[in-house]
Every structure is written in C-alpha cells, then in structure tokens.
C-alpha cells in the first residue's frame, strides 16, 4: 500500500482491450473481476499500479488489467517485483502466482520476498493442479490425485501455502476463494497492509481439477463450512440449517483448537462467551498458525484475514540505509576514481622517465 492521493476510477477503467483467454467457467474470471472491483475501492492509480506474474494460467492476469504489467518467467515474479520496488518504492505492486509457480518452481522466491517483507500484494491462485501444462499434480494436490503424470494417484504430500507463508515470516496472511463476494474485502485488507501481504485464493480449475473446493467454495450452499475470521470477533461458523451455530475454542489440555456447539441466547444471538469461543486477533501469530493448519472436514475452512501485524518494509530499510551511507557525502566521480593511495607523474618526470 502507498500513501497516494486516491484516484477515482470504475471497474471499466481497469479492463484492457485484450481478449481474456481462460477456459470458460475458470475461477480466474471471478478473481479478475474481484480485483477490478477492488482497485476503484482503494483509490488505486493505474499509472502507479503494476501487476507482475510468473508462468501459468493465472500469470496471464496482467494482460487483462489496464495498468502497467510484466508477465515474467516461471516462479520468479517476486524477484522482479523486488527490483521494481527497490528502484521505485512509489509503485503499487501486485503479484499474481499459482500453486505451481509460487510453491514449486518459485517456492524459494516466495519464501524470501515474505521474510524480507517487500511491500506488495501476493495473490496465490491455488487450484491444486498444473492447468497450463494439461493437468499434472501440483505441490498442493491432495495425496492420491490422479493425473497424466500420476495415473495411479500422486504420492507426494501437499504443502500448505498459508503455513508456508507464516513459516517464511509473512506479516499478513489471508484466504479467499474465486467466487466469494467477500474477496474484494480481503484484497482491500491486503492492500491496506504495509509490507508483503500473502493471499491464498482457492480457484476452481474447471478442466483438470473441477470442484475440488466445492465443499467450502461452491457459489451457493457451502457457507456453513466457511469460517470467516474477523479481527475482534468470535470464531463462529455454521447455522441452524447445518445443525446449529458452532465456534472454535482453545482446548487447554491439547493446546489445539476444537469445535464447540454454541447455544442461542434469548434474543436469538449466539452465546459464544458461554461456549468459550475464542476471539480472533489478527496480531496473534500463534492463533494464525493454528488456523492455517486446521484440517478441512473436521473443521471448517478458515477464510478472511488470518494474520495482520505489520513490520518495517524491506524497501524502507534499503532506502534508509542508503540515506545513512550517503549522508554528508558528495557524489563526486572524479574523487571516487582517485581514491586510495595515489602518486603523480609530472611532465618533467614523464620526459625523463623518472618520478623521484
């Protein structure tokens, strides 16, 4: 996020004249719209906005946003973003990556951009599959995923992007999904965070991994499996329809979160205090670790801003260091070249071949 004068734009202003070339029904369309909806909300300025991507279906994203854009090479988007941001900290940089691009070939760079805390938004579209190369299992594919390169089912265990991000030192971790109406709010929070903001966006690959997130990310009817985490609010999910409101409570014996039933008060509101439901605190790193590790099934999918606790950014530290190192120094190239121990040969010396 940058301290810039908000610019008034509409969704239309962020559309390019390029034909969008994702498969019909791909979750990427919904994410693109969510982003184009978010940019006017945050007062983003097209001239200072840069979308940077690697390689993969999601990485075509920059071509469809009317801002500056750089479609780079596989897995390396964070490194290009680092150079841009260090060269011009005024730029508002959005990274678009996927589970293959950001967690496999580019896992290293994802780790380092997070630990350095470069001010940018990192949107990792997780569809648990390699789409652009026609359906091989990815580093987030579930155990046993059948694919062209694993006909009998994959046997490498999946990595968890948000747990990876926290482990790398991320100061902002959030989750959303493609067709969620709440996605712009999540993106807005990511943009408001000064520093590297990591957003895992579950995205439906209609062709190679259709509906793997259906249980919590279906356009309709999966709401009860979603735990939307809001700072200062109790961790509640479910409804009467799904067998009553539930909440997450800390089990002090196992030091783990557990699901508890929440009764309704006379006024119809949930009596979460009585059930011992924990209150979400975006600055609680321990809680964030527990939320990203919750196994889906026994637990709902934790969504929204899971962690948000800013620290000084990388580019600010670099700028500060440069300022300190240059303080009181004049950039005199002639002096720089003549640094160190020098000696002078006079015309007379040169004529006679003697110097002393």
């Amino acid at each position, binding site marked *: 996020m940058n301290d810039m004068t908000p610019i008034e734009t509409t969704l239309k202003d962020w559309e390019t004249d390029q034909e969008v070339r994702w498969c019909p029904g791909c979750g990427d369309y919904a994410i693109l719209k969510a982003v184009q909806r978010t940019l006017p909300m945050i007062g983003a300025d097209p001239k200072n906005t840069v979308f940077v991507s690697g390689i993969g279906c999601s990485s075509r994203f920059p071509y469809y946003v009317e801002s500056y854009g750089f479609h780079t090479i596989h897995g390396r988007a964070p490194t290009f973003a680092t150079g841009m941001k260090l060269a011009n900290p005024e730029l508002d940089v959005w990274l678009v990556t996927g589970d293959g691009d950001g967690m496999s070939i580019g896992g290293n760079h994802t780790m380092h951009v997070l630990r350095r805390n470069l001010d940018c938004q990192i949107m990792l579209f997780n569809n648990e599959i390699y789409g652009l190369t026609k359906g091989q299992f990815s580093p987030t594919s579930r155990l046993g995923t059948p694919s062209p390169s694993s006909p009998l089912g994959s046997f490498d265990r999946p990595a968890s992007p948000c747990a990876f991000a926290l482990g790398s030192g991320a100061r902002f971790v959030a989750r959303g999904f493609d067709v969620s109406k709440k996605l712009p709010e999540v993106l807005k929070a990511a943009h408001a965070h000064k520093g590297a903001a990591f957003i895992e966006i579950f995205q439906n690959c209609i062709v190679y991994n259709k509906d793997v997130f259906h249980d919590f990310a279906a356009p309709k009817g999966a709401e009860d499996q979603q735990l939307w985490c809001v700072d200062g609010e109790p961790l509640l999910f479910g409804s009467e329809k799904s067998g009553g409101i539930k909440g997450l409570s800390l089990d002090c014996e196992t030091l783990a979160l557990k699901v508890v039933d929440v009764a309704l008060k006379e006024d119809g509101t949930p009596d979460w205090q009585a059930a011992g439901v924990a209150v979400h605190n975006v600055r609680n790193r321990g809680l964030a670790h527990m939320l990203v590790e919750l196994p889906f099934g026994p637990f709902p999918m934790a969504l929204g801003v899971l962690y948000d606790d800013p620290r000084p950014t990388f580019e600010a530290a670099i700028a500060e260091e440069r300022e300190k190192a240059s303080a009181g120094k004049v950039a005199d190239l002639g002096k720089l070249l003549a640094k160190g121990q020098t000696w*002078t040969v006079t015309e007379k010396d040169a004529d006679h071949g003697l*110097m002393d």
Partner: protein
Amino acid sequence: MATISAERDAAAKTGTASPEAVVVRFAGDSGDGMQLTGGQFTLSTALAGNDLATFPDFPAEIRAPQGTLFGVSAFQINFGSSEITTAGDAPDVLVAMNPAALKTNVQALKPGGLVIADTGEFTKRNLEKAKYEANPIEDGSLAKWDVLAFDISALTLESVKEFGLGNKEALRCKNMWTLGLALWMFDRDRTPLIDWLRTKFAKNPILADANIAALNAGHAYGETAEISGPLRKLHVDPVPAEAGLYRTITGAEAVSLGLVAGAQLAGLPMFFGGYPITPASAILHNLVKMKEFGVTTFQAEDEIAAICAAIGASYAGSLGVTSSSGPGIALKGEAMGLAVMTELPLVIVNSQRGGPSTGLPTKTEQSDLYQAVYGRNGDASLPVVAARSPADAFECAIEACRIATQFMTPVMLLTDGYIGNAAEPWKVPDPASYKPFPVTFLEEANGPDGKPLPYKRDARGVRPWIKPGTPGLMHRIGGIEKGIDTGNIDYAPNVHQTQTDARKAKVDGVAQGIPAQDVCLGDETGRLAVVGWGSTYGPINQAVRRARRKGMSVSHIHVRHVWPLPANLGDLLAGFDKVLVPEMNTGQFKTVLRDQFLVDAVPLNKTSGQPFAIAEIEHAIGTFFDGIPGHDEGEVPVNDTQLPSPEGKQN
C-alpha cells in the same frame, strides 16, 4: 641474482643491481597472509613508480590444512622500468614460507633465480606433508638456484618479543618480516606500509607495533646481514609514464567504478543484484560502498533472483546490473532471454573461472565465450564486451552500460579471475573526458489515439523505454512473442519472423556504433595475425613484440567487441596469410571467427587454470615461420629482452 649482464659490472661496484624488470613470487600456507603481503608489495611498487602486473594464485579452500601442497597460496608480481603487460613467466625470486610452498613453486623459478626459504618451517613433519624425503635445502637438489635459507620464524619471534604476543600471534607477523626484507631488496619505501598498518590495526595498537617491528626487522636484516652472497639490493628504475595522477587498480575495482561511471553517464540510478560467488563477489563488496552515487545493491537469495531483480529495476527505470561467474551465469540464462524478449537494458558481468560445473573456482579461464555469445534458448543474441586488463575493465564497463541503455538490450561484460584479482597501475581518468549518453524515457503516447506503442522501433530498431509511473502509457510486456508496435501477445507466423529478424538486426546494428578494429601491434597486413580477446592481451602482446624484434611479420589484434564483431574485422583478417588465436579454452573464439569470416583460424589453447606464458605464445608464433630463412624450427632463445636474463648466472 638474475640481472642483465651489462649491468652486473656496474652493480658489482655499487652493490646495487638495476635490472629492467623483476618477477617475485611470494608463496606460503594459505594462512600465512601471502595475498596480503603481495598486495602491499604491489602498492609499494606502484608508489615507487614501476609499472607492474600481478597474479594472485590461491586455493579454493578458505583455510586448507596447514603445510599441505594444496594449501599453498601464491602471489606473483612482475615490475619494471619498461611497460609491463603480464605477471611474468618465470620468477626471479621465490619467497617460500614452508616446504610445500617451495615444492609447488620452485620449478617455475628461472635457473639461477633466488630462493628465500624459512628454515624454521622446514621441520620433519612439514617436509613429510610436502612429500619431501630429504630436506631440499640440504640435499643439493636446489643447486640450479641460489638459496638463501634462514630461520625467519625465529627472527620474527625475536623481533616482536617485547610486545608479549602469544607464539601463534607472533608468528603471524612473519609475512611482514618477509615483506620488510623484500622492500629492502628492491629499494622500496616502508612509510606507506607503516601508515597502512597503523590504520588497519587502529583498534589494536600493540598488533600494529608488532607488525611494524617485524617489517623493520626484516628490512634491517637485509641492510645488516652478513650474508652478502645472493642477497643483493636491487633497484628497478621507474617506468617512463604519461604525466598524471596514478593509482593501482584490480579488475573488480575497475568494473565497479566503470559501472558507476556508466550509470552516471546515462543519467540513471544503478541497481545491482548479486549472489556471492568466487571470483565475482568483490564487485558487490565494492558497490555496497558507493551508495551516494545512486547505487542500490541487493544480495539476492540466488543467481536467478539477482538477475530478475535487476531486470525488474530496469523495467522501473534504473540501470539494472548483475554479476556472477560461469555457474551463476548458467542459472541466469532464462532471465537473460526475458531481457532480450522484453528489450530492457541490463549489464551482466561474468568474471570467468575454470569450468565446467564448479570447475576451478579460484583459477582463471576464458571458457564462457560460447555461453556468452550463444548460451540461451531461442535466437537470443546479445552484445558481448571483453576486458583485456584490470584498467581496461573500467572502459569496458562504461561501454557495456552505453550499449545496454542506447540499444535497450542486455549486454554481457566478460572479465576473468585473472583480471578480477590482478592489479596494475592506472592513470586516473577525468570523468569529464567521457561523452555522456543520457537516456530519454517515453513521456507522451507515440501511437494513434493517444495510445502507447511500446514496441514501435526507431531507425536503429530500438524500442522506447517506458517507466511505470508515467501517466497514460500503461502497457503490458512479457516473455511471449509480441505483436508489432503494440507488444500485445501475438503468435502469428509473420509476427515471430518479423520480431526475430528485428531483434537480430538491432544487435547486429550495435557494430555500426563501435570503433573499427585496430591492430594494437604490428602492420595492418602480413604473414600472421595473432588474434586475442580478454586477459590474454599481456602475453600475446609481449610474444608478438619479441617475434617482431626477430623480424617476423606478425601483428597483434585484440578484440574488445566479441559480439557483434567490429564491421572491419573480416577485411582486416583477410590481409594476413594466417591467423592464430590463443585462448584459455579449447578454441571458442576461433570457432566464432571461422563462422563469421570463413577464415582458417588456428587455435592455441591452454586450460591449466594459469595464464599463458609469453614463451608459449612466442613458440607457437615461431612455428608459422618454419622454413623461412632465419626462423628455423620456431626456436625461441631463452634469453629475452623484456625480463632479466638468467644467462649471466649460468655461466
């Protein structure tokens, strides 16, 4: 001592000999501080007004086991009163701090040369480690040379006794004692070194005093020792030099300064992305200290991140620079392709070392030429500039910046481990003497309807540079083939054909703006052209000079612009009957020359990790003159005019 015989008589009278040039090699354990000793001796030599060239040769291990053959670290310096272009072939003086140092270096010493050995280190155990069955100082196996052996360790301990250092710390002053002796031998002033020691040990005055005491003791030993024999004071006359301000400079320093100067001439801030690798790290270490020149340095997580960040910075309007050595350059290959495709300026410095793979990290080679010229997927041509010497690296770095920014292209600058580490005197240039090449960014739409056309090329085929942050010029670029003018994704057959041709034509066009290839020594036509590039400049130049003195029709051509080649080079080569290409690889530039000019270039290759000796090239030149009267068998007399002759001693 090795001196020219005519001067021996005069020297005998005064006790001072005056050879034209002397080669000294300091060799010891990698923990003995030999590089430091050599570096300081270099400085004092430069201050004495001698021309010089150095060759540091050290092991890849940080601290190899003590006393072992592979742990020997050496530093060679050639200095003299005429122009010096190489670190010298065979040393005149070898300072051997232990048996292993003697064993690995003595064979290189000229017959009749001087060995100075520290007997304190010639213990049974050290002799065994060096695989000596008997003590070479005593068994007569060094008869070919003058040997001056005495207990430097004991003398050092004695000289620093009063400072109460531990035995280990006291022995660390040995290198300063030896340096003191060397300074006496070559009539050098101790003052700069004493000043330097005071600064270096400012926080520990006792260590400063101890080192200075050792330095003075070594000097005094030379002055007062009763052994006259081989240890005679030598005075090498200063070299006649062009008037001006001078300093010593290593290739790594010259590259760093050249990059800063280049960025200033382009009017741009510089962004440097690097990942530690031998022997390229020194450039990062230097640039970190130049922040006030708008330099941002970034130590990346790997080689790929280093180049990609530099490309990102170029995209954002800085001059992106990255630097590495062969293995790291290999990792950067894909990103270079992106810089070619997106047509962004970028300078890639390759300090070459022996390969393949990890190869010889601390030794020199020129075997990355194919990698530089051809080493990317797709038709990804980029300009390549090669520095010939430490000082030349300054000019080449500026040239690389100029081409990168003026042609919107990545440029590779080749140096090597030898150039990077070696030092030579450098006449400090006046920055105002360089013509600026300011960059202009596109500020207004260049297409119809107020739209930007990021790939609309100018007459030279160069696209505009558009910085993000510029209002109204938003556009997208990437590694996918681009539509003509618009830069939008376009895979159409005619588009790829057109853009491939345009990228190639643009890089080929760089040749129009570079100086015509000159002949640096000899005539423009003749029997033999010796064509080199990079750090072979010194030995080729000396070898050609000697051959010409013997009347051979041979010229030296040294190519800075390795790609694209200077437009006149083909015609120039056609003026010679034969072309010889000495290279520290298996014949890479030879292949390029054959390909570009259909010329029958003959290779002369060396891949030992050591620079060419002058004599090796001289011999190869000689073979082209077999059967020509006066040049039988390409014979090369042992005596030569550049280095002092050992003949006097042998007689």
